[in-house]
């Protein structure tokens, strides 16, 4: 793995055991994603896209093979070290935003900073900066239910970048958004990649999203395949 490789998967196998059968979510995947890449992973539902994202985030472990992220073999870390490593290096964006409904936009963005040694004032300043980057500097005191879906996702992006992580993982970030909001979100991700040197790994069904990525791959039944013509 070279110094410029952000993510390296080697022969990664992931199987889920059920009562009387097993499901192979990823079938010996080998993949390198360089730092600063805007990488798009497409594929049908159940193809293993999110599983791959979970392995990169260290919230799941491979059945076989190795996952190295930013030079760390995350499969060898214990849960506590992994949680600390993840909070410093990974920002995660969900399809369904997953904001805490009783907290304001600023408080939601501040959440990851509670695990740092920053003062309250510093945390609030960082949250303000992150929200300004996503164009919501004037919505700091708004609760999620007072925001549109697109705005909620932008708050989620601010939360993902507030700790200044190297890698942002986006799991269907436009899945619940209208066309305009989806474009806004994708533009922000593109800006973060271009202007802030963030490595972005995005999983999506959305063919439009692919146009923002520098590299796209297709996953089907746990295997990397050629991108279908329809895409």
């Amino acid at each position, binding site marked *: 793995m070279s110094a410029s490789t952000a993510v390296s998967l080697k022969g990664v196998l992931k199987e889920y055991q059920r009562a009387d059968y097993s499901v192979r979510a990823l079938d010996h995947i080998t993949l390198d994603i360089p730092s600063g890449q805007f990488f798009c992973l497409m594929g049908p539902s159940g193809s293993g896209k*999110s599983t791959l994202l979970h392995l990169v985030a260290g919230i799941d472990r491979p059945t076989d093979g190795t996952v190295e992220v930013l030079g760390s073999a995350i499969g060898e870390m214990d849960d506590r070290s992994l949680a600390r490593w993840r909070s410093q290096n990974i920002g995660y964006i969900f399809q369904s935003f997953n904001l805490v409904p*009783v*907290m304001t936009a600023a408080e939601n963005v501040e959440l990851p900073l*509670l695990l740092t040694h920053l003062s309250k004032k510093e945390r609030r300043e960082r949250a303000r900066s992150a929200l300004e980057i996503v164009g919501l500097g004037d919505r700091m005191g708004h609760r999620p239910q007072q925001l549109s879906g697109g705005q909620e996702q932008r708050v989620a992006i601010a939360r993902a970048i507030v700790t200044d992580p190297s890698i942002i993982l986006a*799991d269907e970030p436009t899945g619940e958004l209208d066309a305009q909001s989806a474009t806004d979100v994708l533009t922000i991700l593109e800006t973060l990649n271009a202007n802030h040197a963030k490595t972005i790994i995005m999983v999506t069904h959305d063919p439009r999203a692919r146009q923002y990525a520098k590299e796209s791959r297709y996953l089907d039944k746990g295997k990397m395949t050629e991108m279908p013509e329809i895409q």
Partner: protein
Amino acid sequence: MLIPITYNFRNLLVRKTTTIMTALGVALTVAVMLGVGTLVEGLRTSLVAGGDPLHLIVMRQGSTAELVSIVSKEDFDVIKFSPGIAQLDGEPMASHEVISVVQLPLRDDPTSEANVSVRGLATMGIKLRHDVELIEGRWFTPGKREMVVGQGVHGKRANTDIGEKILYGRGDWEVVGVFSAGQSAFNSEIWVDVNLAGTDLGRGGSLSSVLVRAQDSAAAAALQNLVGDDQRLGLEAERESEYYAKQMVSADPVRYLGMFVAVIMAIGSCFAAMNTMFAAVANRAPEIRILRLLGFSRTSILASFMLESVLLSLLGGLLGCVLVLPLNGLEGRIGNFMTFAESTFQFRLTLDYVVGGLIFAATMGVMGGLLPAWLAARREVLQSLGDR
């Protein structure tokens, strides 16, 4: 790092209905516990206030109460001149007294009768009770059928106003005064002249008890031993404070029943809190997942949900205290199994009981929140994620 407490407060506010219903359950439990507590505390205050540590009550050996004791005039003379007894104006501070009861109906409900203690005593007996003061009328005149009623009896029982007459012993006795004894049990008594009462009751010189005041604590202990060791007397002396403290047994049935009900209700409240917290954990699965993903430890999640459960119960505890507040200072009556008479007392809500009630509520929160919080903390980050 712990999850901010505002997160828990706001979640409680968001689930207003379940928060209020659960808090009400806890509030009622705490109210029952505190209600019993205020009764017990009121009665304790009433009985403890009646006991002076330098006072000794002398009764027949084996007697549990003055009402069933006999102390003769001869024995009284022996005790009165024993060493260590305090003097007042050259007279030993000793009082030979007779205790009996009279049945009096409630003023507002003539069908509801209760025994009221009637204490026959001399002037020295009144002087020995230094907290007692006349608040209306005058003291009885020795040799006359006159009564002075305690504040707890006056106006509540029939014929207890000044000028009214009560049938007692061999005839009618006129009420001539009202006394206050602070918060002590004497408030529930009627006082009369000892000699006339003894005669009316056919007791002659054999009355119920002797009350003496020792010069100091050492003298009280010595006097206690002296009376107990004198085989001729067949009497025993007990500190007045201890004698009245023993009468707390009268509150035991109420206390035990109240505690039993409170414990049963507490178990119910624990389940209510548990149910509420289970629902909270289920509804907030995505939040728990994101908190874990952001790096919050299982301990933080456990602490957060436990805190929320305790906050919820403390809210109920505070509400329970508020519910019981109107009881504070109210007058209550309870049958005293030792004197066979009714004692009046004031319900007392003390800071100790409030703190105890809040601790009780918090304990319910801990018991009810432990399992849901533990399950929340055990949730895996991946749990309930859809696309694999």
